[in-house]
């Protein structure tokens, strides 16, 4: 089971390679997780369709690549399409679950996730696909460490997107309204903020972020209709570990999860990838519980 662990000591370059790969992919996880934190914090909706939004964005990139257009151009298109899709989903379904108990939103979005995954399966088939970007691979340290340019480009784009989002939330009128609603929806309403519109915008923005993350993931990694749930769980792990409203925490947790997955995938084998994500989730939940128990004792 732990066959490869010796290799890490024999060839130290492998550690660098795995760490680098993990951090580069982890940035994309953090992006999708930030969307979840947004929706969770503002609307108190736990969106289990998060990963399927990512995969939808990925398929938009694949369609572009299959038509001979470079998938990077799919980034703004996917964001716009997913924004519209998010808005549609909001006015048909999500609007009706915001005020309801927590499980309702979870189960409703789980239903949406099943519909999306299965529809994608019908449309594109169950095969694993990649959006061919034609980027080259660079090598460092005498060819021992390789980095594909696609990953670097994706990382930079993700960073730009994250920076843009932060600026948007800080400076723009809508961003301020979103933050106000997250703090206290009733007070925001009293102050004249159209919270209904804020909710719709937040959910659509989340879908757009996921769509953009999906395009990048399709470029540097693989997508498949049923990978959505794993991405959703990843987002949950990151947000649960970092807490919402804590952007640096989300980024750190995203990078950490990415690195951890690469290492466990190397040591345990690729078939344990999903089990690793789920295992980390359970570990984070237990850790949270211990924290809470401590907190409780202090309060008592």
């Amino acid at each position: 089971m732990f066959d490869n662990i010796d290799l890490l000591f024999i060839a130290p370059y492998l550690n660098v390679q795995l760490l680098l790969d993990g951090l580069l992919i982890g940035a994309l996880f953090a992006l999708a997780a930030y969307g979840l934190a947004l929706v969770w914090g503002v609307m108190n909706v736990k969106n289990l369709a998060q990963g399927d939004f990512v995969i939808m964005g990925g398929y938009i990139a694949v369609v572009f690549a299959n038509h001979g257009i470079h998938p990077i151009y799919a980034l703004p298109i996917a964001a716009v399409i997913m924004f519209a899709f998010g808005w549609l989903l909001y006015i048909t379904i999500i609007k009706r679950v915001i005020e309801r108990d927590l499980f309702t939103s979870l189960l409703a979005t789980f239903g949406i996730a099943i519909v999306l995954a299965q529809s994608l399966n019908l449309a594109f088939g169950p095969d694993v696909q990649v959006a061919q970007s034609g980027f080259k691979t660079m090598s460092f340290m005498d060819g021992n460490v390789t980095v594909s340019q696609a990953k670097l480009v994706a990382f930079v784009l993700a960073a730009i997107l994250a920076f843009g989002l932060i600026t948007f939330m800080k400076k723009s009128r809508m961003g301020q309204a979103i933050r106000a609603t997250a703090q206290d929806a009733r007070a925001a309403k009293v102050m004249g903020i159209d919270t209904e519109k804020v909710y719709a915008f937040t959910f659509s923005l989340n879908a757009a972020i996921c769509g953009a993350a999906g395009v990048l993931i399709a470029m540097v990694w693989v997508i498949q209709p049923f990978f959505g749930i794993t991405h959703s769980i990843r987002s949950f792990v990151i947000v649960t570990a970092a807490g919402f409203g804590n952007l640096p925490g989300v980024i750190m947790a995203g990078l950490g999860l990415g690195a951890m997955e690469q290492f466990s995938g190397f040591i345990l084998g690729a078939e344990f990838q999903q089990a690793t994500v789920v295992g980390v989730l359970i570990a984070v939940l237990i850790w949270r519980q211990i924290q809470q128990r401590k907190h409780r004792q202090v309060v008592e």
Partner: protein
Amino acid sequence: MKNKIILYGGTLAFGILGPMLFPAYISQFTVLWLMVVFALTWDIMGGQMGYNSLGNIFFFGIGMYVCAIVQVGMYYDVAEYTAYSGEVKVAFTPAQHFIGFAVGLLAAAVTASLLAVAFGWIVFGLRGPYFAIGTLGVAIAAGELMGAWDYVGGGGGMSLPGFPGESDGSTFYYVLMFLLAIATFLFLRWLYASRFSLAINAIRDDEEKAEGMGIQTNRYKTVAWSISAFFLGISGGIFGNMTGFIEPLEVAFPTVTFGIFMVLMALLGGKGTLWGPILGAVLFHVIKELTWTYLLGWQWVALGALIVINVVFFQQGIVGWMQERWPEKFGIEVDEPIDADNVRQREAAK
């Protein structure tokens, strides 16, 4: 009273006459009762206690594997058996088969209950959505880990000893599953009439207050979960033997099929009621079997859409809706609401 006799008599007659009249569909009837067990056991937690588990299928799969391991392990070496799965036919005498099966079911039920206690310790500190996602995680992880465990055949699965004699044992498994459904129902009817149900309902309505009133909430939650695990473990053992071949992802831990059906059926019929899950299970299974093959790949899309519609627009379920519509039939006393509109209407009527 009369209604009750019709209801119980009708169900019993359906259970006995159904497979006799349509023997070709006997395995469908078995699955129907399995669905009833699923919905009933999910509702202990989800409906009565307000803890919505997405991972109850875990106990079903555990029951299936434990039963299989015990059945084989009593007479042969399991690792050898699974290594040659399909190639080497091992012979079980009828006596060996049935004793092994009985012990296996018992072991399945006990192991599932014990695991419920163990996992309860981990997940019961989680509330609401964390609980749902945590349990979902446990079920997914269990499927993945079983697939990597070569002792039980890994992802390739393991086949179970065949039913002794000429028949394939479908009648035998039908009777077992039917009895299990009846036992689950009778046990829950007794349970819901006891103090226990008051305590778990209190947890559902307000856990902090319940704790404040001196209810040992953790103990009640653990017991409730082990009860559902107990019956689910047995159902897993029976179902595994019925299919004759078990495999981690599709048969033992099918999180997105059976695991979600449980929730959906209980919600469809009306969660938190005794008959709701049964009604939901029967209705869902019949609709599913009638329409599944005609939807040509769209059935899963339809399933997801059904969940969304059910949860968003019709969450009280059929029995819940009936209780709202005709509360007096269910022995619920409703005080007439007094508000300004009401009074004004009454004044106008005068």
